[in-house]
């Protein structure tokens, strides 16, 4: 079992070589509704899922089925009406610094350089790193995602894909245990998106985090995740779970094998069922 006592001292995931069986994210029987002026809108209904430590989970489902609500619950930004969200068996009742987030909108701070943007979480999360160590850490990540040489640029000087890379660096600079990605590649063109998938694999090889990715792209989910969860239409519950374990970084070619095609076909069918267009 990997020693998880110190979040800042954990080794790279792939180097550890072990498939963790201990679950890190646990969502048990979560039901949640939004209160609006016209009444309460149920979004999640008795949702149960868990993510083992060090794994990558993709969540797909019809539009507006409550996927983003799920991320906010895990991040502790919201408390579910019913059910329990826990990390390491500990109930989540408020935000915690062991979580990193990235969204479809990279939300970089325009008045900061790329380096200072990546450093932001280290200004918030308590840590013993000196300014020099923090910068070294941020520079390592920027190098890893291919942004070396852009650290002193402003976000407005970068392309959409590059901003999203910087946003990913910011999400993991404080070595979070849980990385929550809410459609981070959704607004990018197809080629840039595939580049970023590769970047995600590189990050996973070097960093240790348990990742939950919300996406609309089935190929993305099959390429990146160990486990793909299909949510039903609103109010969402887990409709189908696809096991897709990974033994190391994948190459794009693997998306064009018969096995991958079969998995994609299954997922596509499940999505159509979730949308109510096909019967199970």
């Amino acid at each position, binding site marked *: 079992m990997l020693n998880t006592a110190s979040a800042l001292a954990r080794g790279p995931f792939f180097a550890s070589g072990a498939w963790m069986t201990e679950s890190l994210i646990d969502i048990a029987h979560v039901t949640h509704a939004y209160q609006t002026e016209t009444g309460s809108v149920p979004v999640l209904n008795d949702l149960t899922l868990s993510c083992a430590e060090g794994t990558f989970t993709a969540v797909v489902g019809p539009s507006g089925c409550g996927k983003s609500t799920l991320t*906010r619950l895990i*991040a*502790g*930004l919201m408390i579910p009406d019913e059910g329990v969200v826990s990390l390491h068996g500990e109930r989540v009742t*408020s*935000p*915690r*610094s062991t*979580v*990193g*987030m990235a*969204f479809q*909108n990279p*939300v970089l*701070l*325009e*008045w900061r350089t790329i380096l200072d943007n990546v450093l*932001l*979480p280290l*200004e*918030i*999360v308590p840590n013993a790193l000196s300014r020099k160590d923090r910068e070294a850490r941020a520079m390592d990540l920027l190098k890893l995602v291919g942004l070396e040489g852009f650290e002193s640029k*402003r976000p*407005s*000087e970068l392309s959409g894909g590059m901003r999203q890379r910087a946003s990913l660096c*910011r999400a993991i600079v*404080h070595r979070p245990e849980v990385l*929550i990605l809410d459609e981070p590649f959704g607004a990018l063109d197809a080629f840039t998106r595939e580049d970023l998938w590769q970047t995600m694999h590189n990050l996973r090889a070097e960093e240790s985090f348990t990742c939950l990715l919300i996406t609309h792209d089935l190929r993305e989910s099959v390429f990146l995740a160990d486990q793909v969860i299909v949510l039903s239409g609103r109010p969402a519950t887990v409709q189908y779970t696809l096991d897709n374990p990974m033994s190391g970084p994948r190459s794009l070619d693997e998306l064009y094998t018969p096995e991958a095609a079969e998995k994609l076909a299954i997922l596509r069918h499940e999505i159509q069922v979730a949308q109510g267009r096909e019967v199970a």
Partner: protein
Amino acid sequence: MRSLRKIWPPLAAILVFLVFWEWLVWVNGWPNYKMASPSDIWPAFWKFRWLFLEYGWQTLWRTVVGLLLAVVVGAGIGMIMGFSKTMRDALYPLLVGFNAIPKATVVPVIALMFVGAHDFNTILIAFMISFFPIAVSISIGLSTLEPEYRDILRSLGASNFTIFRKIALPKTLPEFFGALKVSVTLAFIGTNLMEIVEPHGRGLGHLFDSGKISADYPLMFAVLIALAVLGIVLFYVVVVLERIFAGWAERQET
């Protein structure tokens, strides 16, 4: 060389304007009580140069103090309205109503309320006329902050104050400076309203009044020009501050 290239277009524009003005007065044969020409104004200005310095300073410092007050109070109200929707709904009508009152009508009321406190009265009017744009811009800047910005910091356990200091405040600066540019000129209007409507022998407004009483028309025009110059100076002070504190919002010329 670069600064020279930046400075000559506005200087040339001013020069063209003065020449056109002079020509307009000359070609129409207007007497100086109808329209003084630049060549009439300069002697008036030179004759009263020490008064211009003294009164100009009085007008300037009172305007600046009124403006600073407007920044502090405007930012405070803006923050309250920006962070709380209830407060925004509650205060907006009040604020709009207050702003809709012509300040010229407030001047005698204020003058009666604080008899003799001329500096205070003048600063108060300058403040009252100029805080509104600042309050509105800051409240809009804060209330339109995308939720993701807040989530990024909140998910790390940051306090509301940290979120304000790290994100909301810097993000609102461009709007704030935009409003401040409007407020600078408004504050001058406020100061001069007080000085002209309730003259106590101070400020450029008083000099203007003296010109009116003694039928010294070129002097009146000279005061107008002096006010314009002060307005330009203060405006560019704000521009410089904006470049220092919110320069990132400016797009690079390509």
